[in-house]
């Protein structure tokens, strides 16, 4: 089956405003993860929801993503709630509509840029025994590169300051660090005795409720805390993801963002009067990308 991707593209570049804050261009994956094959690995003691790159913190539709930190007894998981919900609705949809040959590409909250893939939305992070495992789902037509890697839980060298502010009712103290090429500002809540935060952030004496980089490209801000227990789950299909080192996964993600057209062998095409398609010249469009991790 020829999976060559074909389209008519006359553009010399894709407008930067079409992209998530960090630039790059990749359409969202087509395949939903299979909810019928999931294992429960722990139970939450704390669940924190973070807005990712919100324009207005009280409007979900202005977020690029809503993400969850599930803190369990042994395992801590960080993942996208929007993608999880979309995949879950899509799985349900597929079950309820057995005649479907494909499922809708996105269901649930129509957040900002939901048709755009980002590794910060389509990755699940598990912390267990001091190790962080990242399972990365890759963009449209590149799912064969779905990958996983493991590293020691990253440690940020924090500098505490005595500035404070209140976030969702918790008094937070400011701390700063330099991590993988960027300077970050974090606000942690000493009243919440959990040394974690969004994404790969942690290590402060209290839950990190807000992190932003100094350039203002990326923000994570808590919008809700729950203590009711929830199961922490892991998709069985993660076992089929290919193991690579962090560097290789990082390079792939960066190159996909920078030129998804090149990576997918995108071609111009003409539809003939008989409905067939004639494949034309290859398309290569570079879109500058500014990832969260610069190294």
């Amino acid at each position, binding site marked *: 089956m020829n999976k060559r991707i074909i389209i008519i593209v006359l553009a010399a570049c894709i407008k930067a405003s079409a992209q998530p804050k960090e630039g790059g261009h990749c359409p969202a994956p087509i395949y939903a993860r299979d909810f019928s094959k999931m294992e429960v690995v722990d139970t939450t*003691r704390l669940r924190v929801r973070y807005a990712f790159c919100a324009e207005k913190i009280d409007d979900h539709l202005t977020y690029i993503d809503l993400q969850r930190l599930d803190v369990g007894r042994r395992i801590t998981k960080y993942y996208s709630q929007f993608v999880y919900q979309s995949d879950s609705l899509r799985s349900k949809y597929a079950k309820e509509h057995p005649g*479907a040959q494909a499922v809708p590409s996105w269901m649930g909250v129509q957040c900002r840029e939901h048709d755009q893939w980002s590794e910060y939305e389509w990755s699940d992070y598990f912390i267990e025994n001091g190790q962080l495992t990242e399972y990365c789902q890759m963009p449209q037509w590149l799912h064969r590169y779905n990958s996983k890697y493991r590293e020691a839980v990253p440690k940020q060298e924090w500098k505490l300051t005595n500035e404070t502010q209140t976030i969702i009712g918790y008094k937070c103290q400011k701390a700063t660090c330099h991590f993988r090429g960027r300077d970050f500002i974090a606000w942690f809540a000493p009243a919440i005795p959990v040394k974690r935060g969004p994404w790969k952030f942690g290590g402060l004496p209290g839950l990190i409720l807000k992190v932003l980089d100094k350039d203002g490209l990326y923000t994570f801000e808590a919008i809700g805390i729950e203590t009711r227990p929830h199961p922490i789950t892991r998709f069985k299909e993660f076992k089929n993801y290919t193991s690579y080192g962090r560097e290789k996964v990082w390079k792939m993600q960066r190159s996909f963002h920078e030129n998804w057209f090149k990576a997918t*062998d995108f071609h111009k095409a003409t*539809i003939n009067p008989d409905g067939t398609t004639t494949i034309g010249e290859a398309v290569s469009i570079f879109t500058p990308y500014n990832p969260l991790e610069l190294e």
Partner: protein
Amino acid sequence: MLVILVIGGRMQAQTVIEGTVTDSLGQAVDAYVTVSPKGTGSIIGFADTDAKGYYKLQFKSAADSVVVTAAGMAIGNVARVVANKSQRVDIRARQKAIELKEVSVKADKIRQHGDTLNYTVGAYQQQGDRVIGDVLKRMPGIEVSESGAIKFNGKAIKKFYVEDMDLLQGRYGLATNNINASDVATVQVLEHHQPIKALQNKSLTDDVAINLKLKNAAKGTVAINTMVGGGWQQSSPWRIGSRPLTDGQTVIGQNPLWTAEIVGMYFAKKRQNMTLYKGNNTGDDVSRELTEHYSSINSVGLYPFCPMNAVMPNGSGLPQKRTFDNHSHIATMNHLEKVGEDSEITMNIAYHHDDIRREGTSESDRFISEDSRLLTSETLISQTHLNDLSGNLRYMWNAKDGFLANVIKFDGSWNNDKVEGLLASQLNGPQPINYGSERTHQHFDRPSLAVSNTTNLIKNIGKHTLDLHFSAGYAQRPNTLAVGVDSLNMQQEVFNTHAYQQDIDSRHINANFHTNYNFHFGYFTLSYGIIANASLHGITTDLDGFTPPAASGSEVGSSPSDTPSLRNDLWYNTYELTLGQHYKWERGGWRISLGCPLNLYTQTLDDRVRDDKHSYVHLLVSPTFSTSYEWRDWSGNIGASYYRNVGDPGGIYSGYIMNNYRSFQRSYVEQLSETDRIGTSASIGYRSALNATFFRLNANYNHTRDNQIYGYSYQGATSVVQAVDQATTADSYNLSFDFSKGFDWLQTTLRAFGGYGHSHSEQLIADQLYPFNSRTISIGAGGTITPLPWLNFVLSSGYSWNSSYTDSGGSDLLRTVRTATQRLSMNVYITKQMTLSAAVEDNYTNLTAENRHAWFGDIKAKYKLRRCDLELQLNNLFDQRHYTRVTYSGLDIYTNTSQLRPRNILATVRFKLL
């Protein structure tokens, strides 16, 4: 594991506090310890406990006392206030669940737009994009053809809405080519779209639809856009006969050039209207916008049989803009009115008028026998008058508990072709004959009429759904092809009448019904369907002026007493009942599918000329099989299919019909044609996104067997074609590859492709069977490069070799056609308002005596002002006057030279009236 962080600038003595954190039983707990000056709450240092519960804090503070807090998920926060001095502080904490206030900015609101993908138009709109079709082309997954047809992820869209209403009923090219991009807020792609509300939770479709959400400012107001333009080119006389036929050195097109359009649109909640006029004489085919890309309802197809046409200058292979001398006008009115909450009436009327003139020379070099070939040269000037009027009226009631739609369609046309020609022919070989030159006049009058009515009723009765779909239609073509050949007229001493006249009155009545069901069991999908179809063809033909070859008995299968007739009067009816079945198994990277439709196919032939009635019943089985496997960057698939086709209207007439003035054909040989075809294919592919390397190799083989062969005989330049009861087979083999590689350097992409094809088949010429072979080799390469953000180049280059020979023939028959095409195009984004594009192209062919290289160049500049858009085109820069294309067909070589529109300049201005 002692990490200490300190803040504060003053010089203070360092304090060290250490100790253990344990639970009530004295066991170490997973916790950390913080320290803050008393009364501030501001943490100045913290340390984790180790496996034994030990911690060590080092900090500097001027405070008298500090708060040391042990914290952890198991113990919460346990604080001790101690003096600010180095000391040991052991903390024993009780296990307790953390008590935190649950907070939330606001409850999550899930907006379920399950099947909708929204593209914000502003995000994809670029410099130079004017209408929504320009922006659609850039949206990932969406492809738009020149006529405006849209595909999403390779699938043709089944509905096109503006503000959720289907105003255009399939002619959505009108919307994509005319609605301003700046008036559209969002393009919604609706996947799994089920337009029938009563089926929305019952029946799933794989259909994709597009909905344009307009900006508020564009709703409820009348918008009128207009465009006018003019230009100059060298002109030539227009009417046929206004100048003598020449050696083809004149040009086509008229001076001055003009183009104009006016588009009115109104989109409100209960009423939508789109009315437009477009016209030009610049070669632009505006009628493309009237193409119906989908039918609003499954109406029957109506194809009254008419196997004749005028011989026209054709086949340049160039864009029609270069070869068309036209006077085009289209006008269309589309109106939608909501007549109730769930019902609406839609009316669409379209009219197309055109006068198209073409001029060219066609040369054919046809195989007659191993040592002789028939050479013909024909210079033609044609003028086609088109008048097409079509309309449909649709009522639709679309509610949750039921659906009713009724569509009445009407299609009428009064079209005719007039062609003046000069034909020269000669037979080469041991006994050369020069048939001399003939002046020919063809007049093809081809009116047609089609009406149909389609009703679809869907009703939910409890859990079940009743779905009735019935469509029936009638079409008729009373057509006449009249041909005058000067010498024949002189022989017959008849002037001002036609040498040949073919009348056809063809009718087609068609009705159908179908339904489909799917089942799923684990990895298996089973699909079954029932299709019922009745198709009735009534064909009456009468040919004057042709003397058929004497029935030699053997190859002409009619009864020996009859001379072959020049009349047909028959009804050919087919009744089909098909049980469709399709099985699919998918798991991991594997996908296996098997289809096996069973078709009970009944045909009746009532030939009133031969007074012969026959009926035939066949059970046709057409299995298909395919399997594919994907593993990481590799994929492979193989497939095979078999089908059998019995009879078609083209194979049942026993009286001669003039296909064109040089070809007369009869096709019935006492039995229906039977065709068996076996096809197999295999491919293997590699695609690495990491190093942007893509490769695919395809191979396929086809074998066809027919129970009859068409035999050719020649009377001068005229061919007489008869079906002969003799089996024939054909085989073809093809191998092709495609390789591409992308580089980061200047966004460069390189591509190479190539193919080899070989086919073997038979031709029956003058009772002699010639097995023959053809071979095609093609290779090509190309690339794109973007040296600067505002500059982009595209280069492509292709070569092909084509040759044919008979198994027994000498090498003199082996002539190779070599063709090559090179093209370089460039886009320059000079400023945000100004875009310049230029293209140069060379087409080469080796078989023409002169003008082997044809160079084309075009330049286009666009300038966007606040209130209007300006465009300037310079076409055919090198003033190429004619273009020759050579094609192979079997053992015959055709050379078509078309007259072209000369160098021309055209300027247009486009603005909004309202």
